């Protein structure tokens, strides 16, 4: 970030510089690092170091609030007189950074699957991960993944058998299995699905009879007919998916 911010300053792109700093604080520091720090991974030295670094970067833009926060960190020196952060090639951990991004992706994907299945935040689900070569990395972040993806239990193995009746997430060579029964209240879901199937079937029926109606076929413009046909095949597809899902629940 620092390199880019410096470049923006050189080119008088102050808005870009400010936005980059803010994005770092928000989407990197707050959304991830602080969250991770809530668990056993807490490292006050780094947490404070990064906080100080971004306060310095923020200072030209928002001098007052940054200086006020600084007062809680440093009693002697004022932020206004601090040194501007510099790029440090000693502190560029390319490999580890990639690993962390993998963990973010994993957590994000589990989270979005949860929301896809409308799983209540309070409900813990279970996961089994076949991590291949990434087992060491994931093991060392087991607590983070478990907590941030709201998992009840998490097993990390090098590899294993396919697990039936599970949702599977693939990220490169990693496979994440999430048993469906954890995510779904089967009875409730069956109920919902069969209702939806009935509705779909009724709709498809009426669409079909419309397309079989000679009057409609003769009089309607070609594009309209094409559209209706397309619609029918889409709806039939969805119905098939719903039925498959129904089967998987039983």
């Amino acid at each position: 970030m620092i390199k880019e911010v410096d470049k923006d300053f050189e080119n008088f792109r102050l808005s870009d510089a400010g936005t980059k700093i803010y994005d770092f604080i928000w989407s990197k520091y707050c959304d991830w690092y602080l969250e991770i720090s809530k668990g056993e991974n807490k490292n006050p030295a780094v947490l404070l170091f990064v906080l100080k670094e971004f306060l310095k970067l923020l200072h030209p833009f928002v001098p007052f609030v940054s200086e006020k926060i600084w007062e809680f960190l440093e009693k002697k020196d004022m932020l206004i007189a601090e040194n501007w952060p510099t790029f440090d090639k000693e502190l560029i951990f390319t490999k580890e950074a990639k690993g962390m991004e993998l963990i973010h992706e994993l957590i994000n994907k589990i989270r979005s699957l949860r929301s896809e299945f409308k799983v209540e935040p309070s409900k813990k689900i279970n996961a089994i991960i076949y991590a291949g070569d990434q087992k060491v990395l994931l093991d060392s972040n087991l607590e983070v993944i478990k907590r941030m993806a709201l998992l009840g239990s998490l097993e990390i193995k090098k590899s294993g058998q396919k697990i039936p009746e599970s949702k599977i997430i693939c990220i490169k060579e990693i496979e994440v299995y999430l048993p469906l029964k954890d995510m779904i209240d089967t009875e409730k879901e069956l109920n919902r699905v069969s209702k939806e199937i009935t509705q779909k079937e009724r709709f498809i029926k009426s669409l079909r009879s419309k397309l079989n109606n000679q009057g409609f076929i003769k009089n309607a413009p070609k594009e309209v007919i094409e559209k209706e046909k397309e619609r029918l095949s889409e709806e039939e597809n969805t119905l098939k998916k719903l039925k498959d899902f129904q089967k998987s629940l039983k």
Partner: protein
Amino acid sequence: MENQIEKAYEAKKYEDKIYKKWEDSGVFTPKIDKSKKPFVISMPPPNATGVLHLGHAVMLAIEDILIRKHRMMGESALWVPGTDHASIATQNKVEQLLAQKNLDRHKLGREKFLEEVKKYVANSQNIIRNQIRKMGSSCDWTRERYTLDEGLTNAVQEVFIRMYNDGLIYRGNRIVNWCPRCESTLADDEVEYKELKEKLYWIKYGPFILATSRPETKLGDTAVAVHPKDKRYKKWIGKKIMIPGVLGEFEVTVVADEAVDPKFGTGIIKVTPAHSFADFEIAQRHKLPVKSVIDQKGKMMENCGKYAGMTTTECRKEILKDMEKMGLVEKIEEYNHNLSVCYRCGTPIEPLVSRQWFINVDKPIIKEGNKKKTIKEKAVEVVKEGKIQIVPTKFKKIYSHWMENLHDWCISRQIWFGHRIPVWYCKKCDNQLAAKTKPKTACSKCKNNHWTQDPDTLDTWFSSGLWTFSTLGWPEKTKDFEYFHPTSVMETGYDILFFWVARMIIMTTYTLGEIPFETVYLHGLIRDKSGKKMSKSAGNGIDPLEMIEKYGTDAVRLSLVIGSTPGNDMRIYEEKIAGYRNFINKIWNSARFALMNVSEKDKKIKFTKKHIKSVADKWIIRNCKN
């Protein structure tokens, strides 16, 4: 508890205290360190009697961001603050105040009036100073300047005298924009235009019929003009003819001039050299006599017979009546007209011929090798060759075009408040000289020792044109001037690129032979939510101080900087500022959360590479430090 961070950030509670802490610490005052290049910004001086508006606020926000960054980078970062005496604006304000007490400047006399102005300025300077502080501006108050302070006055006189002795400054009769209310000349860019429905009078004019919007100026006509290719009038060209008028017959010459539009009216126009810019130029080209009929108060002069003493409007009415009686009025039409008015008071401009001081922009004077360049050429060159960068670059072209078409600059103003022109006239003969103070020696021509100073003052842009170097102590050989000049960035609105930035380039390259600044950064104008320009009359203005009071300075700063790019106008409205207050709160909350997760002992840790442990640590540090 002192170490406990409050739940919510209350800007109002902290800002003034923090500013005081900074200012008291001396951190705004850089040290001269010849081993490194300084970073310098001259603050565009707000009017000494003004109040802070959003235009100032955006200027202060951007400059402060740059200064703080460069200061943190370890450079000697100097930001010179100051105020402008803004001659006409300030004089008008004080005159308005005097009028409430039934006084005017003529009753008081020059000296007493200027004392009143001085008092008024001193009072209101404090207001603008504190408003600059409110924005968080980390400028060096120990180096604050005023365009009318002793040092700057000395610099102004020095430059004037140099130019005078170089023959660049001359006095001449010229047609100028004149405001009869302010009783002063106005620069071209101090004239505003108002579209109006006006009457166009078609009048019998000897053997011709012609259209004019100002029949009263007939009293000052010395010619009629036609286009050289207009066949209708070919046989008249060059002839002198007698025209019947309300004050008897008078003589005009028929001239042919390219400037005449054969499609306007009947293709023939009357020429009043003393009261129209276009006509003055025609008169110059054809060596026509110039006859003034309107005086500096906008009244008809002694040579106007029974109309003498009338205002131009009164005179127009009377003269039309008389012309109707004589059967000279053919018809009256309405037409749309762009009336020029004074930008200060809205009074219609009266073009007048008067004696004024000018800077000759076309005289070769700057020596370079065997050649001599004009000040205009030099000012074009430094931008063209990239010695001065303009951000955004689209303004480079506009600048060059404007500069290449620059005419002699009229620098005298008929007002009292300002830098008095340092020219002294011998009362006994026509001798004159330029000097900072009244000459003590006798006149070299007639040996008398009676000197009187020119009564006029200088255009306010003359002194602000010297701003980058006069504020650093020039013409004294100060350490500040040696170290801090040329400055690094000139940051201002694109609307004063010509008013001011161009003039600084002219004055500095002439006086010092160096540029005033390396980069010009131009910000856009501020518009309201729907994109309209903010103005008092439209009632869509936002008071930055009220916004600071409500949402805090940081939020106001962000709303002016984030999402805007150099040279492009920006929209500001209260919800936007309120949005950035939430942004500030988020920053506060994240820091607060971080602080709640560490102990006092943790805060004393001296961070080293050894502290970086987990993958997450490495990831966050990489993302910060790369």
